[in-house]
Structure formats: structure tokens, C-alpha cells
């Protein structure tokens, strides 16, 4: 089921705070304060005013506010220019914009064979310059 139908979204507005576990099957946006764990099969966004201290599991994650916690996503994790994150990221793609602040480790689940066909360990044929 590759088609993502983003019909529903729950927005936790700026002066709402929640401490505990959140689990669901819709998009979630956090503009207030949240602590605990957040799990959704859809997308998660931490808005500019959002402050989150939680481990997150979501289809994709966008951090435009502040996040302390680990992120586990099958999709793309983005830290935008207002985003600040401390924690580890497991994702298939990662985007960090200019201005973002990030401290932690990153594992992208794509093939770790590297995109270029050349590898240091696999020396190309002698003298070959495969300029594209």
C-alpha cells in the first residue's frame, strides 16, 4: 500500500501539553509540549513552537521545533532550518537543512554499498577515469 492518503491530522496546539504515550493511525503535528512516546503509522511533524522529549516512530518525521529523543522511521526524516534535535535517527532518507542543529547518530536504511560504483576497496581498472 504505497499510496499515502493523508486525510486526518491531529494538531496539538501551542498551549496544550501531554505527557505519556500517544499511538494512532493519523498524521500528528505537535505545536506544544510533549513528553513520552509518540507512535503513528502516518506522518509526524514537530512545529516551530513544539518542544518534544520523546522517542518517535512514524512514517515520516519533520522537525521544525525542538526534539530530544530517538526517531525510527521507514520514510524520510527532515530537520528544517528552525529544527533542533538531540537523539538518534533511523530512517530510509534524511534531510538536514541549513540552520538546523543536530547531535546524534544517523543510520539510513538504504543500501550501504554506496551510491557511486567506485569503492576504495574495489579498485577500478588501472588508469581508468570514469568521469560522468
Amino acid at each position, binding site marked *: 500500500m504505497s499510496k499515502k492518503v493523508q486525510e486526518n491530522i491531529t494538531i496539538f496546539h501551542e498551549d*496544550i501539553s501531554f505527557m505519556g504515550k500517544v499511538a494512532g493511525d493519523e498524521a500528528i503535528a505537535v505545536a506544544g509540549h510533549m513528553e513520552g512516546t509518540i507512535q503513528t503509522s502516518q506522518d509526524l511533524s514537530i512545529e516551530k513552537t513544539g518542544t518534544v522529549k520523546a522517542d518517535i516512530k512514524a512514517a515520516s518525521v519533520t522537525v521544525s521545533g525542538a526534539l530530544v529523543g530517538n526517531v525510527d522511521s521507514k520514510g524520510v526524516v527532515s530537520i528544517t532550518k528552525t529544527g533542533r534535535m538531540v537523539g538518534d535517527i533511523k530512517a530510509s532518507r534524511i534531510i538536514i537543512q541549513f540552520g538546523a542543529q543536530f547531535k546524534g547518530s544517523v543510520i539510513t536504511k538504504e543500501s550501504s554499498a554506496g551510491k557511486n560504483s567506485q569503492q576504495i576497496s574495489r579498485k577500478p581498472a588501472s588508469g581508468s577515469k570514469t568521469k560522468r
Partner: protein
Amino acid sequence: MPVTTIGKSLILDGELQGTSGLSIQGIVKGKIEIDNTITVEKGAVIKADIKAKDVQILGEVKGNISASGNVHYMEDCTVVGNTTTARILIADGASIKGSVHINI
């Protein structure tokens, strides 16, 4: 500040607090303290003590309700717990199991 609507696919287990309006369509367990209006929508299930200004109940609440303003028990709602409030409205078909204290 706009009303925060907890969607029907969400399950919250913990403490929900705030100063802007809250509408609940999903499941909330734990504690809810909102200095504003809370609406428990039809189909929502609350297993928590609720503290708010006004509470409008269309769904299911298992917990005590403390409101400084009004509590409206709407048609087909189910409440199991004690209510303390300044004013109530009970619609036909509402089900309340517990005491209701009206403090004027």
C-alpha cells in the same frame, strides 16, 4: 488559540493539560486538566478524571468530572463517575452513573 482535536484513531495514555479548547474523538486514559472547554465527542472513550471550565459529553466517560462552569450530558452519552460543577444540562437519553454535585 484554536481547539485541539484528538482524532479518532488516537489513543492517549497519560496527562493532558492546557489552556485552549479540547475536543476528543479518540481514546484518552489518565488525567485531563484544561482551563477551557472540553468536548467528548460521540464515539470517544475517556478513562480519566476531567477538570475543566465547561464539559460537553456526547461519548463515554469513566472518571470524575470537575467543572467550574457547565457540564452538558448530551443524548446517548455514558458517564460513570462523580461530577462537581456549577451548572448542568442533561439531555434525554444521557446515562449517568454516579453523583452530581451542583455548587452555586
